Each structure stands twice: as structure tokens, then as C-alpha cells.
């Protein structure tokens, strides 16, 4: 019997690719998923040592299992899928088609006709191979909710005939952003969880893995590289972001020796690759900001502010305006920064009062700062951030 760790890592690496290939062979995402699960169950029984190409083994076994299963069923879908399978006998596992399969599956999971939570759940389930309880735990929603979202999404893919294909060049500008958003949101949910513990490592790693695969599949899309660079540069600082007691450590106070050097070098190299293409977009600019933060021993705030100006020109959102204000404070002082917060409308977002409180404190307006910290503490979603804000507030006394 195979060691649990081996099978676990093979499963993580191969699951999404196998589902993607089977989805093409079967013309149906749900059937593909069942077939791949069947094949992994067989692998658990049969493998002594893993075969040299475990993915190919899984695909062949899944395909044969699917044929068996379809022969036993007589529904219209089953006959259709069986016909598809028989038209493509023993197709060799070439690199080209497999890469296309993966891309097709990514674009299907993140199709704009699906609701955002469904896109995320489907991506984690089909591409990441995460189980429903894992996804539910990560998003702190009941398992039944996630299971239902996934079932409904798969039903819509079939009923509405959401195609299983890579969008062409003309469609890509509209279709790529939702894919990037899904990967970014998976990472962000792991990084700043909306409730409970601060970092859920698994989600961050899964998002980085998927972004890396996407960058490998679409190396000519600068925003894809930008997203990967951004995630890697944030991920590199994770070991320094939480202190021994689980408390939040700000960028300025982080022990830089704890940062992951390899990831920082990778992130910087990716940012340079993006810059050479000279087709900037929001993810590339955010990656560049993080590259400045991780360059040398201290942040060059003038450069950060210039990049935030560029980002705001691209995406004039209140969150960008808020982050820009932090850079304004470093370059032009807290008074100017405070004025730039006027007119930012972010109801319920704790970082707005948290930033305002910090600026008030720096200006010596202690009473106002205290009241504004209270406002932020009430809105903060997780324990680490609440503790951080309480400490800041008590530093005022």
C-alpha cells in the first residue's frame, strides 16, 4: 500500500489536471469529477509504488471507469458521454491538449454567468481538489451551503450550456479578470480571514499554486504574471506578519530576516518581466508596490505613492484611495493624509477608522484617536486585528 503522504501530494498535483482532461473526454464536469474520484480510490487500493506517470494512470483508469459506469446507465446524457468517449479511443496524454484542458476548466469554473461564491467553490473543488468540508471550513459557512453551491453551479454549466473552452483573444479582456479575481479572493480569504484566526495557510498556498499554473499556461498575459508576483511577494512576508502570540505585526515592525528570500527574489523577477512588457494593469501595479516594500532595508515611500497614484488612475476605488492615504502620510505628513481620507466611503470597513485613528494619534489629537480606534475595534473581523487595535489604543494612554 502507498504511503498517505505520497498519495496526498500526487492527488494535490494531479487532481485538477485529470478532472480537466476527463471533462473534455466526457463533455461533462460532474461525470469527470466522479470518474477521477473513482480512479483515485482504485489507486489507493492498487498502488504499491506510484507508477512513473501517475496522472496518465489516473486518466486512463478514470476513463475506463467512466465507460463502465456509463454502460450501466441508459440516460440520454450517459449515451451522449459514451459516444464522445468512444470517438476518442486511448488518446495519448500529450502536453498541448492537457494544458488546454486545464485552461478550459479554469475559464469554465470562473465563468461570469456563475455567482462569485460558486466560482470560488468550484475552482477550489475541481482545480484544487479540496473537499467540501475543507472549503466550508475555510469560508466559515455550513458544508451544506458549499455543497449546494457546487451542485447548482454544475447544474447551470450543463443546463445553460456554459461552454468548455478557452475564450478567444477578443473575449479575453472580459473573461480573464474574473479568473484573476477568484484566485486573488482565495488568497485574500486565507490571508486576512474575515473571522477567527488571522491566516489560513492552506488557502494562500492553494491560490499561489493555481496562480503559478495559470502563469505557466498564459505566460504572455502581463496581468497573470502580475497576480502571481503580488501573491508571492505577500506570501513571502507571511512568517513575519504574525508574532509569537498570534498578534499582527505591521510592515515597519516586521523582522525582515524572517521573510522568504527565495519568494522575494521570484516576485521581483516577475515584476521586472512585467515592466518590460509595458502593459500595466492593477495586479502588476500592486505587485510593484509590494516589490518596493520588500526592496532593501526600508520602504521608498515616494515611489510607493507614485505607484498608488498610477493604481488609482486605473482603479479609482475607495480601498485604493485609503491605501494611497497611508503612503501620503509617509511622504507629505499625517495632516495631508487625514484630509485625503475625507470623502472615502467604506461603510463597515474597519481599516478606514483604523487608518484615521493612527493619523489622529500622530497629530497628537489623542481623544479623537481613542474614539476612532473604538470604532475600528467594533468593526474588525478577527482576533489578531482586534488585539492589534486595542494595543494601539492603549499606547495612547
Amino acid at each position: 500500500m502507498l504511503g498517505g503522504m505520497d498519495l496526498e501530494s500526487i492527488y494535490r498535483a494531479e487532481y485538477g489536471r485529470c478532472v480537466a482532461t476527463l471533462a473534455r473526454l466526457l463533455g461533462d464536469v460532474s461525470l469527470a469529477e466522479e470518474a477521477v474520484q473513482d480512479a483515485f480510490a482504485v489507486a489507493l487500493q492498487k498502488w504499491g509504488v506510484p507508477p512513473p506517470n501517475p496522472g496518465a494512470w489516473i486518466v486512463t483508469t478514470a476513463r475506463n471507469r467512466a465507460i463502465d459506469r456509463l454502460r450501466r446507465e441508459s440516460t440520454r446524457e450517459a449515451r451522449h458521454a459514451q459516444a464522445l468517449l468512444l470517438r476518442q479511443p486511448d488518446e495519448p496524454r500529450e502536453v498541448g491538449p492537457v494544458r488546454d484542458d486545464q485552461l478550459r476548466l479554469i475559464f469554465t469554473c470562473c465563468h461570469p454567468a456563475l455567482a462569485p461564491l460558486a466560482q470560488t467553490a468550484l475552482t477550489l473543488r475541481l482545480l484544487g481538489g479540496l473537499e467540501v468540508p475543507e472549503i466550508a471550513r475555510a469560508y466559515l459557512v455550513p458544508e451544506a451551503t458549499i455543497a449546494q453551491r457546487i451542485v447548482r453551479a454544475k447544474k447551470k454549466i450543463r443546463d445553460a450550456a456554459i461552454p468548455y473552452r478557452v475564450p478567444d483573444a477578443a473575449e479575453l479582456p472580459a473573461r480573464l479578470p474574473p479568473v484573476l479575481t477568484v484566485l486573488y479572493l482565495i488568497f485574500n480569504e486565507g490571508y486576512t480571514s474575515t473571522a477567527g484566526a488571522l491566516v489560513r495557510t492552506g488557502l494562500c498556498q492553494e491560490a499561489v499554486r493555481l496562480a503559478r499554473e495559470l502563469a505557466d499556461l498564459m505566460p504572455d498575459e502581463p496581468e497573470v504574471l502580475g497576480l502571481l508576483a503580488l501573491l508571492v511577494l505577500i506570501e513571502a512576508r507571511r512568517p513575519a506578519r504574525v508574532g509569537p502570540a498570534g498578534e499582527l505585526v505591521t510592515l515597519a515592525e516586521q523582522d525582515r530576516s524572517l521573510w522568504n528570500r527565495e519568494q522575494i527574489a521570484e516576485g521581483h523577477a516577475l515584476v521586472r518581466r512585467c515592466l518590460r512588457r509595458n502593459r500595466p494593469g492593477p495586479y502588476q501595479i500592486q505587485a510593484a508596490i509590494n516589490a518596493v516594500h520588500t526592496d532593501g532595508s526600508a520602504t521608498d515611500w515616494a515611489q510607493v505613492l507614485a505607484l498608488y497614484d498610477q493604481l488609482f488612475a486605473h482603479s479609482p476605488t475607495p480601498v485604493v484611495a485609503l491605501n494611497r492615504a497611508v503612503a501620503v502620510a509617509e511622504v507629505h505628513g499625517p495632516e495631508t493624509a487625514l484630509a485625503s481620507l475625507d470623502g472615502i466611503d467604506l461603510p463597515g470597513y474597519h481599516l478606514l477608522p483604523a487608518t484615521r485613528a493612527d493619523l489622529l494619534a500622530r497629530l497628537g489629537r489623542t481623544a479623537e484617536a481613542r474614539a476612532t480606534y473604538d470604532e475600528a475595534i467594533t468593526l474588525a473581523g478577527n482576533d489578531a486585528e482586534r488585539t492589534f487595535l486595542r494595543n494601539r489604543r492603549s499606547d495612547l494612554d
Partner: protein
Amino acid sequence: MKQYLLAVHHAYDAPPMSDEEMQKAFAQVDRVNTELRSAGIWVFGGGLLPPDSATVVRVEGGNTTMTDGPFAETKEQLGGFWVIRCADLDEALAWAEKCSRACMGPVEVRPFEDEPEG
């Protein structure tokens, strides 16, 4: 091939279009209809008179009742629709975009049930 309903939802409480806008929308919809027909996508389509022209017929327990007005008393009502036949949702969505631009209103895309095998 699949069939899709492209339903135009109209807010009947909103201020009506000016005559000029109305003429523009008619001309644009006409052009889209021609395009749908020549692409072999068109099945059926048309604009509806306002919901105050509607009558609901209901047969319950052998009794037939007829009531004046639309089925649902909502501000948003079906204003017109297309039925199209195309390969998949992406194709239907691309046509819906053209239709929405032409009629200057939101278009809901709904797949038909597959026809039973004959």
C-alpha cells in the same frame, strides 16, 4: 444546438422614452433582428404592449377565472423577447449583449429545456 429566451425587462414606473429615443431603439432592434435572421440564429421575437393590456386566465377545480392585469404586480415587467437557437451560452450571451444595446434595457438569458428525443 440549444434554444435560449432573451427576455427584455422593462421598468414601467420609469419615465417613458422620448419619441426620438423610441425611434432610435426601434431602428436598432430592427438591425439586430436582420442580423439574427441572416446568421441563422433567429427563432422568434417581438415587442409586447404594456402590462395593462394583459389578462390572466386560471383554471382551478374545473372553474375558469379571468382577471385583468399582469400575473405579477411588479414594476419590472416583460417588455419583449427573442427566442434564439445557438451552440452554447457564450454565443447566447454575445447576442444578448447586442440585443441589450439595441433595445437599451437589460436582457435576461434563459435556456429552454432540451426537446425530448424523438
